[in-house]
């Protein structure tokens, strides 16, 4: 079998895609944003809760899409819990560089900070799938942005 394909669809990604973590509603006060990829129909709603200092205390999502978009949303919901908005944003930057294979993606500390998200690095060999992997992140960034009520799209 194709090594790049094996790298893309690692067991952990298929597992997250099939059994996404934090695939639920958030009860009580929360801020939600839609993410939509019109090209493939991937659609999700991501909700988050923050404490008085702005720190993210809970993230959950619901929706439907391919294994990559569901796995990426699932992992996002695990890694950004407890982060500040600035930390989450830095994480997205690093994650985006990892996916696009830009210079610096392999640099130690930044890569380390991504933790389990590194398993999605295989997406870089599949440029048409980068949008799938970043859909939930775009929804997260929109949800962290004050006053933005527009749905986000990756198109």
């Amino acid at each position, binding site marked *: 079998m194709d090594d790049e394909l094996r790298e893309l669809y690692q067991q952990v990604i298929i597992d997250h895609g099939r059994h996404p973590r934090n695939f639920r509603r958030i009860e009580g006060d929360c801020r939600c944003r839609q993410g939509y990829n019109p*090209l493939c129909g991937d659609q999700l709603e991501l909700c988050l809760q923050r404490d008085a200092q702005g720190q993210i205390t809970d993230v959950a999502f619901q929706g439907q899409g*391919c294994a990559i978009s569901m796995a990426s949303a699932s992992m996002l919901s695990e890694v950004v819990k407890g982060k500040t908005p600035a930390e989450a944003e830095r994480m997205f930057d690093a994650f985006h560089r990892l996916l696009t294979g830009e210079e610096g993606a392999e640099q130690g500390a930044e890569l380390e900070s991504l933790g389990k998200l590194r398993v999605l690095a295989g997406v870089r060999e599949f440029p*048409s799938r980068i949008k799938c992997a970043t859909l939930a992140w775009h929804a997260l960034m929109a949800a962290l942005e004050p006053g933005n009520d527009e749905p986000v799209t990756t198109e």
Partner: protein
Amino acid sequence: MNESMPFNDVDYTTLAERCRGDFPLLARQMHGRPLVYLDNAATSQKPQPVLDALQYYYRQQNANVHRGVYQLSEEATAAYEAARARVQRFINAAAMEEIIFLRGTTEAINLVAQAYARPRLQPGDEVLISAIEHHSNIVPWQIVCRQTGAQLRVIPVLDNGELDQSAFAELLGPRVRLLALTHVSNALGTINPIAEMIAQAHRQGIPVLIDGAQAVPHLRVDLQALDADFYAFSGHKLYGPTGIGALYGKRRILEAMEPWQGGGEMISQVSFEHTDYNQLPYKFEAGTPNIADAIGLAAALDYVDNLGLEVIAAHERQLLAYGTRALQQVPGLRLIGTAPDKAAILSFVMAQAHPHDISTILDRCGVAVRAGHHCAMPLMQRFGLAGTARASLALYNSRQDIDVLIEALHQVVRMFGDATTEGGQ
């Protein structure tokens, strides 16, 4: 060689084997595997005679048409008009004047919506379409309905992909001013019984536009027999170039219509006070037309007719039956669109994997299929799907191509697991 073959040996030479070599692109490899091109409903590959015709035109005949009084322009004009006559013959239209060259099906439908329907629709009038239309036979009608206050009505689809004919009969009410219907569904493959539906609409005086984009590569279309008022199709799904297609319209109707776009070619006399329009079909061909691609399209029609559309159709029917049986054996796979009368389109979903994941894995096996909503989002919604994977066949596809597809789908099953034994980890 034939002489040495035993008398009762079966000839396994299929259409695909004979023709594959005519299509240079099919020799390509994808990710180190031979390309298996199964996205023909999106666009088909081009045979050598079409490529040759394009090159010959640009190398030997290029000049503007209907303008110059010199030999080269006359040659270009003759080639362009011969292409029009070729299209007329291919769809058995009554006259050359009824063939308008346009960019493709989408442009043709937009022309009819704006130049035919818009001046005629009143608030409360209805335009009738079906639930299995491509966006290009939905959105132009939505636009014209918004412009005029008319209503869009939709013939529902049954679970197997056939239109609900009893609902159709009821929807043909006194306010319907136009029926716009696809001949063959691009997402499901359903062949609509358009001859009967056109006759039914005509009994109530309702004109009919048929979107023939998915039909002309697979079925013999005889417009004098069908009696459609408008028929639109594209060249690029018919082994011709992109950017060229045709609108057929009945002469009587086209003559009563105002032009759609203004410019050169479509006029007979212009002053600043008044313009007299050119005769058909030039009235609807403003500006320098797509001469080269019209000539390329004519070469494609020659190619198809030399093989025989009936031969192509029989080949595709066999392949469709073979593919249907094979796909039904793949664990977790469900075919979407199982109408008894179908063109060679196999739309499916898998319990294990999303269409985009399927498509990515197939691509790595050299297999090109379309994944997504197929520009038919209302139809996908009707079936409760975000999209499907779609394998669509053409004359150069073979059983071997289907076998490679099936093997690649087993790869999906191996990778994503057997859907029936899904369990938490």
